């Protein structure tokens, strides 16, 4: 169905220009499409977070602009675009201006690997999972630079906290993913999903997979800087943390990137543990857009859990954060990888 649309566009373009030009045009089209997805997704997730927060907090959340306040975030984005970009006088100007783009670019690069359905995936390489993790660790540079270049002590503390937090929790995310890669035997995302046709990895890998999932959720929350790991922003301690000095669209980049990063983390969880775009009833191929539908449903379910965390838990202190990672998660993770390897070796997986 979708493939037909793609081939139709391809043929149409071929009728208009040379093969080489078509190739470039298509790349541009895909890029523009992803920018669109990025913006819409970010705005939708902001709206969702506000509604969920309202639901948890005995209030309504946005409900005036558009149906259920759906256009509220668009109005907010328009406001942010039209705002003046202020900054501190003594900021390190070059770094200060560049920093938001690190965050936004890496989030976009990671988006390219997200398999929205069997057909909709921009970039399916054989080291997919590895690429995702490496790209998402570049994003932290943006936050780090923002903290440093703002020339504000609150920003600096926030930036330093990011450094500590990311170095620690990258490990846990990576090792939880490696555990699942041991089970899958491949790094290519489409293959990982295909392999789950006989059963989602969280069931086939049972005990080690469940442990890996829990660790991934904890570390993933830390990766996307959300409560209970939001020390980077920690509004009651640091004002707004690393983006204290940012305004207008530069601030919006950080804001949107945070939500898109949450989406990426949730997507990885869905791909690795819950069978990606596969339907839980095994009728994916029959219905058009079913893959997209199931993928979205699963991702939103995982995102809802992240939001649930955010509106329930208090925040960690920096030393407790490190204790949790280095004394608990990392050793458990290492044992878990060995356990998973043994299970795969002995054929104890379903």
């Amino acid at each position, binding site marked *: 169905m979708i493939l037909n649309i793609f081939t139709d566009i391809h043929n149409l373009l071929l009728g208009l220009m040379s093969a080489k030009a078509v190739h470039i045009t298509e790349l541009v089209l895909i890029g523009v499409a992803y920018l669109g997805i990025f913006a819409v997704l970010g705005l939708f997730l902001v709206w969702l977070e506000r509604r969920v927060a309202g639901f948890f907090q*005995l209030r309504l959340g946005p409900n005036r602009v558009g149906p259920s306040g759906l256009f509220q975030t668009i109005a907010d984005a328009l406001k942010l675009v039209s705002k003046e970009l202020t900054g501190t006088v003594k900021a390190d100007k070059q770094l200060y201006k560049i920093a938001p783009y690190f965050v936004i670019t890496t989030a976009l690069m990671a988006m390219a690997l997200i398999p929205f359905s069997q057909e909709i995936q921009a970039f399916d390489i054989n080291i997919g999972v590895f690429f995702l993790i490496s790209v998402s660790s570049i994003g932290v540079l943006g936050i780090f630079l923002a903290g440093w270049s703002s020339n504000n*002590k609150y920003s600096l503390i926030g930036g330093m906290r990011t450094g500590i937090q990311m170095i620690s929790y990258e490990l846990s995310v990576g090792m939880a993913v490696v555990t699942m890669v041991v089970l899958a035997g491949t790094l290519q995302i489409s293959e990982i999903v295909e392999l789950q046709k006989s059963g989602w990895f969280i069931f086939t890998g049972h005990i080690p997979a469940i442990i890996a999932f829990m660790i991934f959720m904890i570390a993933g929350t830390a990766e996307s800087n959300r*409560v209970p790991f939001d020390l980077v922003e*920690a509004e009651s301690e640091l*004002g707004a943390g690393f983006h204290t000095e940012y305004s207008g669209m530069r601030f919006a980049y950080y804001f949107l990137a945070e939500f898109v990063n949450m989406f990426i983390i949730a997507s990885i969880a869905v791909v690795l543990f819950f069978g990606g775009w596969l339907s839980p009833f095994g009728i994916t191929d029959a219905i058009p857009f079913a893959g997209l539908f199931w993928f979205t449903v699963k991702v939103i379910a995982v995102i809802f859990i992240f939001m649930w965390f955010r509106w329930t838990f208090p*925040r960690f*202190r*920096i030393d407790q954060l490190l204790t949790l990672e280095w004394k608990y998660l990392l050793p458990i993770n290492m044992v878990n990888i060995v356990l998973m390897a043994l299970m795969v070796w002995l054929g104890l997986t379903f």
Partner: protein
Amino acid sequence: MEEFLTDRLKTQEYFLNMGPQHPATHGVLMLLLKLDGEIIQNVELDLGYIHRSIEKMCERDTYKQIIHLTDRLDYLSSHMNNEAVCLLVEDALNIEVADRIKVIRTMMSELSRISSHVLWWGVMGMDIGALTTFMYGFREREMINDIFEETCGARLTMNYNVIGGVRYDLHENFAKRVKDFITHFRKKLPEYDKLLSNNIIFQKRLEGIGYISKEDAVAYGLNGPTARGSGVSCDVRKIHPYSAYDRVEFEEILFPEGDSYARYRVRIREMWESLSILEQLVDKIPEGEHRVKTKAVIKLPEGDFLQRVESARGDFGVYVKSDGQKFPYRLKFRSPGFANLTALNKMAKGLKIADLVAILSTIDIVVPDIDR
């Protein structure tokens, strides 16, 4: 090599201005922090950003007018502050107030105490990073504010006390509304524990943090729930019972641990005790006048007068030196928050910035009360 490293990697202490505009300082308080990385070396308090010279203003006001100014000190226990001034004048002039007035004042005080503690609980959660508690706290606070509004028309700065009684008689719905609130709050308080008190992250954030020993607490002049968290018995309602506190049974909550979590638990348990006081009184409001007639111009006899009440934050005192005129010669408010805040450096030294925020929250300051 080692020399090279220590030369290159030496850390530098720096100063951080926390406030006067900062979400954690609950108003316009400024803390000058001396930090080594995240570790606090020293906390210096810089007060005076909302000094309104209320004590000086009181010297040009009659005693009836002074009551209005006390609302603007600790706005969360405005009723208790009013009461202190009224009790002082009534004592000095030997005005005997009816039982009904005493019971009304006590009930309103306890309602204020609950509403203040509920707000504190919400803000406490916010400071630790759990944002939902604030809304939950306000749900209960709204109910109490509605009772206040129905009784005297105001929700925050109530001005309900007058010399010789209370301004208006109780609304006919009062007893029913208070009973509704008691049943509602009895169900909701365990929910507070489920959401915040029993959360492992929350407990780890508070346990053993901001320790102050019993001796130090006495030496710094701590009072109210902050001192009772260190095991210092200092409840004015017990030591010098006023209004109807001598006829109700309640427990003075004491926790000997002296850390932030003890101070947290003192306030949670105090809400239970306040509920029980309300429950004992709500069915036994005596009939009678709500206000005793007083002279139009009130003049205190010459001499010194002191009245203490237990406000939501601790021992609130009013001291008046009178020279027989209708204005006080000198008036001094003893605010509970000021003494509690002075111990901040002692509590927070050597801990992290996040701990400072938690400690500041367990001290439960209201800045207008400290800066008068």
